[in-house]
């Protein structure tokens, strides 16, 4: 803390458009002016306007003050404007403090005289705290306009195209032999009439032809490291050769895995998966009659045994049920816990299916299956006819039963989560649904998620995510550099015991401890040339300034530049 004698504080009274004028009477102004270190006092009517703030800064620069305390509304009113104050000509944004007397005194203390007293206390405290302020600078570094997209499904392709169109060089990495992913199995979408394969082929062609996209298929993911502007993905090709791909930002779009349900009776050939159903319908229904003993007359869809809160199966079943009725005149049952209609146009599709004679049965207790003369007997209690007695259940003899595959997280999610420090949700999908991250962002700057690796959704929903993730990357890279202020944590290497606490607790993976080979060792300034120190270091461009590391460090080696321990101590005092 510097001696308070050196500080020259300007008090700036913001009347907040006249709403606080009754508080800032002459006596109050006199009181402010009399506080220690206060060298000047200005008044304004509305400082939340950036232009007014600029004018004020011009005045401050002419005056003697080197820091200012704004007395007015919530700091949130002013802070964004502070950030825009030009460093070269103006006042450092961190040399301002705000005394929030409007929200914390005037509006919450009905009695005017008492509110005035509280105003005085708040301002006096802020003045004391102002003596600890020091300017905080800014830095920027160049970002090359390139990005990595992991996963070559529709989501990855859409993201890659969006980035490439924005003149960002994209490397699209996919494990499969070709790009396309799961959607390639689909021949119809419920909400896109007719064939989708042409739309789909068109997408694939666009990706392959785009000059800004380099596609690398048949690669196995081996690792991912780095930080914004310098992410490196390690991949291995089938011959076992490893290589590194570099990019300023990363979009994870690895999709999800599926596990077919083949246990016990589900292994019987009359049980098929939704993609198998899709394939049977793709050939105009020829395979629907290939069974020699008996034509496949009755088709039953079983939903919600798995993936109960995922809408894909339900959408798919309704779509294919309609096709089976419309084109092939089969008897169709859809047995589910809840019909998922929360998709654009799905309510109408559901009604259409019912009108066409598809029978929907809803259960609370899962149906039972048995083999009867080569057919599958599905026994189920429909919730609305349970009244006929507890034993009453429906028996549906089916030639074909479509059971859903279980959607599970991709097996790479765990590895990626570990190396990137991104939390996995309980079920293993990437990133907890924390509203602060608006779905596609992660806690690691420059890494975005979209599609099935986040959560299996229908195509339209997934594609919007792809675009949103691409928008996030475009935004970061569009300026060609990343600027950040240094209101971050800083570690004093001399005090650091390299206990590895801070890298572990940092939620944004912003701390590294260089402790490997000699060349990698972090050499701190101020020591003899050969003196090599093992210490933790904050990567300022990754740091969000949360201060978690500061309070966790056992040796108190870390300082949060914009809120030091001293400043907090002064605030908690009387």
């Amino acid at each position, binding site marked *: 803390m510097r001696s308070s004698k050196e500080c020259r504080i300007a008090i700036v009274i913001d009347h907040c458009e006249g709403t606080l004028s009754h508080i800032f009477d002459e006596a109050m102004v006199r009181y402010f002016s009399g506080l220690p270190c206060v060298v000047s006092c200005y008044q304004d009517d509305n400082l*939340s306007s*950036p232009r007014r703030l600029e004018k004020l800064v011009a005045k401050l620069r002419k005056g003697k003050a080197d820091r200012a305390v704004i007395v007015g509304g919530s700091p*949130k*009113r002013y*802070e*964004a404007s502070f950030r*825009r104050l*030009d460093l*070269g000509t103006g006042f450092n944004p961190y040399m301002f403090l705000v005394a929030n007397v409007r929200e914390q005194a005037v509006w919450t203390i009905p009695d005017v005289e008492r509110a005035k007293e509280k105003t005085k206390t708040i301002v006096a405290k802020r003045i004391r705290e102002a003596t600890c302020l020091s300017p905080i600078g*800014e830095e*920027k570094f160049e970002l090359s306009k390139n990005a990595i997209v992991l996963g070559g499904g529709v989501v990855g392709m859409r993201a890659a195209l969006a980035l490439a*169109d*924005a*003149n960002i060089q994209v490397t699209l990495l996919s494990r499969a032999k070709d790009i396309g992913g799961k959607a390639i199995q689909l021949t119809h979408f419920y909400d896109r009439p007719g064939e989708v394969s042409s739309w789909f082929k068109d997408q694939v062609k666009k990706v392959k032809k785009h000059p800004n996209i380099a596609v690398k298929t048949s690669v196995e993911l081996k690792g991912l490291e780095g930080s914004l502007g310098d992410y490196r993905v390690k991949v291995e090709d089938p011959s076992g050769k490893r290589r590194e791909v570099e990019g300023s930002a990363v979009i994870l779009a690895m999709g999800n895995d599926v596990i077919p349900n083949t246990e016990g009776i589900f292994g019987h050939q009359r049980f098929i998966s939704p993609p198998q159903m899709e394939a049977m319908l793709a050939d105009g229904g020829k395979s629907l009659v290939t069974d020699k003993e008996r034509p496949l007359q009755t088709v039953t869809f079983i939903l919600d045994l798995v993936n*109960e*809160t995922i809408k894909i199966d339900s959408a798919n079943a309704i779509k294919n049920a309609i096709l089976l009725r419309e084109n092939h005149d089969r008897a169709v049952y859809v047995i589910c816990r*809840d019909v*998922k*209609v*929360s*998709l*654009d*146009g*799905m*309510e*109408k599709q559901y*009604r259409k299916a019912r009108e066409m004679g598809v029978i929907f049965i*809803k259960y609370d207790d899962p149906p039972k299956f048995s083999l009867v003369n080569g057919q599958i007997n599905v026994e189920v209690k429909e*919730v*609305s006819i*349970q*009244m*006929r007695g507890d034993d009453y259940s429906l028996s549906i003899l089916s030639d074909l039963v479509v059971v859903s595959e279980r959607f599970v997280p991709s097996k790479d999610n765990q590895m990626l989560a570990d190396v990137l420090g991104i939390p996995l*949700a*309980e*079920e293993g999908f990437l990133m*907890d*649904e*924390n*509203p*602060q991250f*608006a*779905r*596609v962002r992660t806690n690691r700057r420059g890494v975005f998620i979209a599609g099935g690796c*986040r*959560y299996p959704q229908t195509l339209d*929903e997934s594609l*919007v*995510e792809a*675009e*949103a993730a*691409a*928008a*996030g990357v*475009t*935004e970061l890279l*569009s*300026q*060609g550099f990343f*600027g950040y202020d240094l209101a971050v944590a800083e570690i004093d290497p001399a005090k650091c015991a390299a206990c590895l606490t801070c890298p572990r607790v940092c939620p944004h993976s912003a701390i590294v401890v260089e402790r490997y080979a000699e060349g990698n060792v972090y050499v701190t300034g101020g020591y003899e040339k050969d003196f090599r120190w093992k210490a933790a270091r904050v990567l300022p461009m990754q740091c969000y300034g949360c201060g978690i590391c500061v309070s966790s460090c056992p040796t108190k080696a870390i300082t949060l530049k914009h809120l030091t321990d001293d400043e907090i101590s002064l605030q908690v005092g009387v």
Partner: protein
Amino acid sequence: MIEPNKAVTVGQRPGVADQNVLILGSGIAGITTALELSEMGISSTILERRDRLGGQAAVFACKASEKCNKCFACVVDNQIQEVSRRSGIRILTESTLGKISGDPGRFKVQIQSGGNESRLEASVILVATGVDFFNARQKPEYGYGLFQNVITAQDLDEMLHAKGRVLRPSDGQVPSRIAFFQCVGSRDETIGHLWCSKVCCAYALRFMKAIRHQYPEIETSFFYIDIQPLGRSFESLLEACRQDERMHLIRSLPSKVYGHRTSTDLRIRFIDPVSGGITEEGFDLIVLSIGMTPREDADQVADLLHVPKNEEGFYRSPPPDSGIFVSGACKGPRDIGGSIIDAKATAREIAQYLGGV
């Protein structure tokens, strides 16, 4: 030093007057688009009919129980704060659109703010006008407006937001039995609303969880047709609701509510799925989970800007070269998170339209 609003590296599209994007509506979709555009160095003007920002979601309450239930309401709060502080985003409240002339990329727009009229040039117009809440009076059998203790989810939201409590309107007491009626104004042939509003199952369940957390003595019932999942955390939410013994999930929609104006024992009639018979039960607060409908003036705006509509009356995206974009719930019901990512995607499209970012 970064000047987010100065450093425009976006190439100028030939013939684009200046890169001012006019955004109709300051709901979460409009606000998010403005913020995203500003990150990319594109300035915008937000036009809002009302006197405050944030659209519908601005007055939603937090529905956390022992932990956050992912309703996204607080995200809207953050975004409102952020947008009112950014320069490069002009905000005109209590303003509406007048005449429009000019061509795509160079629209000339007349704006009415209060009694004043002003003009503005816009290279792109974004329609993010959102939706209306369903007017529960259109379902007279539930007695909204007639019985004081029949309220809508929106009323409940506003009550929780402003007072932090759940109280019976008739006497200001904490209720003991609350019923939620789902699909009010959605999935309903009698009023021609053949769509699911997507969010109401989730918000009602969150409400119940939050209320049960705050008032463990309250018993809640949830009357529904089908439960619609929403977002990834829904599975655990639903599971928790099913586990709760004082939260009853009943697959049946009540047909009618009986009582008198200030009744604290409103009788409802429904088919009990367990016994199969017609049953009556009493509740002292009934919450109608109202859905979303196209805005009252949706046709007007659509005609003015030549925005196509779908069968339900929500907007569809106009052709990309029209210079008109659509985003958010006006395209059809969606949740806040969905509106946010839609807005991000739209911002990118706009940037690209303006000259291939």
